[in-house]
């Protein structure tokens, strides 16, 4: 009995020591893994982080966290005790909310940008014998009556961007613009997919104008089925004076255990290696000016020289008021 008790005790001591050692041990070596929080449609090509792992020995796990708005809502709620180390992809319509809730450790950095613009179906407009619109004012013309489909600004990110373009363009007079736009029988649907794939003429709908992205034409070419002829123009075009610029940011999440390693990851995200991958996987423009744009962008994506912009602080302050005013005009 005595022997057995001593035996058990010694085994217990050994076991506890072992547990204690491994527990201490896990703290001492350098971390080998970082978690990158990103929105749902963050789909860089496979192996996009291999170069980073090779350089630093740090593995990157991507954690997907709903759409951009959901991601910010969650990050604000968990500020200081984050779900990851670095967050990718908060755009300028949300960045103030994130910084106001002290989501980030330090200043977030811009990582990419893109423009939300009215797109048109070239064949469908030709069939109707009308020219493509170029400006916001063009859209009020009676020749575009019942032709435009836009997304609900209260539920959709491009929908909100288009509303912000009109606010930037017309200032306090924007409600007036929207009343005229609604009178011109614009169709409002729930989401981008709904607008583009259900109502846009190119996919069987009856509206030849749709609020989409300036990079939708290159996507139409790359993903065309059957493939397009070598030098054929893109099937859709962009009304270049209707655009709102969206810039996306990445930042170190406050409360991470590995701020130094996280900074290395941020550096990688804006490095030429990584930024080169962005255009043809996320259909955004790289922020790094050293990156050469792919041919599809040069050929098919129009350069938007003077997009509309708004200060992100103003968007944060007035968003609710604007959206309620907009709902009164557009939805009721």
């Amino acid at each position, binding site marked *: 009995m005595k022997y057995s008790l001593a035996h058990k005790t010694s085994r217990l001591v050994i076991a506890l020591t072992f547990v204690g050692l491994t527990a201490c041990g896990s703290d001492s070596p350098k971390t080998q893994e970082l978690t990158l929080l990103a929105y749902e449609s963050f789909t860089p090509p496979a192996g996009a982080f291999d170069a980073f792992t090779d350089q630093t020995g740090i593995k990157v796990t991507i954690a997907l966290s709903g759409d951009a708005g959901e991601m910010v809502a969650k990050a604000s709620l968990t500020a200081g005790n984050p779900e990851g180390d670095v967050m990718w992809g908060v755009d300028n319509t949300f960045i103030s909310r994130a910084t106001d809730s002290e989501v980030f450790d330090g200043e977030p950095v811009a990582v990419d940008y893109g423009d939300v613009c009215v797109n048109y179906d070239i064949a469908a407009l030709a069939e109707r014998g009308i020219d493509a619109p170029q400006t916001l004012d063009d859209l009020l013309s009676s020749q575009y009556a019942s032709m435009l489909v836009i997304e609900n600004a209260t539920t959709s990110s491009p929908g909100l961007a288009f509303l912000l373009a009109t606010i930037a363009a017309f200032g306090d007079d924007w409600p007036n613009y929207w009343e005229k736009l609604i009178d011109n029988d614009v169709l409002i649907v729930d989401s981008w997919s709904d607008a583009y*794939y259900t109502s846009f003429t190119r996919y069987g709908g009856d509206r030849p104008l749709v609020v989409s992205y300036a990079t939708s034409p290159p996507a139409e070419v790359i993903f065309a*089925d059957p493939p397009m002829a070598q030098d054929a123009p893109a099937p859709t075009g962009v009304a270049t004076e209707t655009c709102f610029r969206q810039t996306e940011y990445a930042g170190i999440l406050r409360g991470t255990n590995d701020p130094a390693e996280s900074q290395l990851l941020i550096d990688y995200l804006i490095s030429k290696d990584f930024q080169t991958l962005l255009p043809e996987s996320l259909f955004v423009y790289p922020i790094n000016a050293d990156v050469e744009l792919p041919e599809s962008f040069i050929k098919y994506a129009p350069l938007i020289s003077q997009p509309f912009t708004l200060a992100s602080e103003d968007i944060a302050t007035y968003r609710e008021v604007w959206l309620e005013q907009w709902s009164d005009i557009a939805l009721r």
Partner: protein
Amino acid sequence: MSTLWTRLASAPALVVVAVSTAIPLMAISVQHIASVDIFAVWQRPGVTDALFFSLWQGMLSTVLTLAFGLFPTWVLARYRFAGRSILVALVTVPFVLPTIAVGAAFLAVLPTSLHRTTWAILLAHIFFNISVVVRTVGPLWRSVDQGLIESAQTLGASPAQVYRHLLLPIARPAIISAGSLIFVMCFTSYGIIRILGGPGLATLDIEIYRRAVQLGDISGATVLGITQTLCIACAFAWWSRSQGAQFSKIGDRNSARALNRSSRIIVFLTAAAFTAPLGALIFSSLHTRDSWSLTGWKVLFGLQDIRGLSIDLPSSLATSLVYALAATAIAVPVGMAATAFARRHWIHTAVVLPLSTSPVVLGLAILITYDRAPFDFRSSRLLIPLVHAAIALPFVMRATIAMGNVIPPDLRHAAETLGASPWRRWLNIDLPLLRPALATGVAFSLAMSLGEFGATSFLTRRNSSTLPISIANLFSRAGDIPRSTGMAAATLLIFITGLLVVSVDRRSYS
């Protein structure tokens, strides 16, 4: 001793509900409701409209689904015909239809004049929820002795009288069960209303999403979320009182008859109504521009590589299946155990909490509740199947209760007199008779989990994507190939669900 064990039978179900929903909801309420003026939240524009709309369209959808659903339910329960189990699967699969595919599948077959109207919503709700009627009420009608109906007819009862005085009373508890679940599904309807209803219409669930995500008003969203949950729980508690009618005439199992003329028409109409939207979906996966193309399917199965389109189908399919099996493995035993002995109504009300909670509020609540060691489950892989199981739980329990009512009490009494323990009695007498309910529970749990989007997309996931989420990602890209690949993936999701449902039914529903 045995009473203690029978009391504990419903404990796992309560644990699932508590861990997945009740505790997080309490935590978020404590943190975020105390500081806001609840009445001010309700006075904001759109809020009362959303509540009112949720209520009336929820009730109308429920009544219509029951009215239209009882016809195919009767035919599927009482008649024998080739393709019967396929038809049962066909009415079950809309459950998993991803939101954007609803647009493609439904708008394609709906007359343009109905697009973006309340009618489109009501029709879609009937389409989506008819399986709840078929699967909850069907097994009861299936077990009615044909002799009983024939003797009523011999005594001069018209079909209407047979229905009113015999079939309806038998099915009433099941109809109420089905109706209450359909009401919850329609009250909290989200994707269907957003896609089919046009932008002016919003349920409370949509208003909650808008507040939390677009406006960052977490407190407001929490107030509305808690109100919604409580509203539904009260309605449920009230309905549950009418449970428990007993019917003890077990029919012989081979009473199914060959189709006659009227039942043939019902089979045809049901098959047509459910094939058309799915046909439209398959068509869109195979047709781009003006030509037929297999590209979507090739990309889906990795037979063709498209630059810039990185979807990992095998991994998202595997994730979906593993989650679905895990959710089913939790929901079915836990749900059936909870109904084995519990006759307390509050348990049935408690299990509907997860289903009636807004996925956004639930996601946020889980996030702030399980965020510190040793309870840091935020990124646990078990979290999503657990939430799926919690959502499926009321379907398992309702199906079991409805079926349990036809187990003759004298059979149980006999077993008791012979000294069988309650558990033994349940295993040897109840369980074999509950096989149709088991099939329904498994089918619903699988379908619920395979198609679930809201909570899954809201919870943070590491290196894993479910099929519905991959589909949503495909539909967020412009171009022919992302679209046809998305349609192909939606078709595949439906096909897999159908296959699982058929194989489950083969084992025990028939």
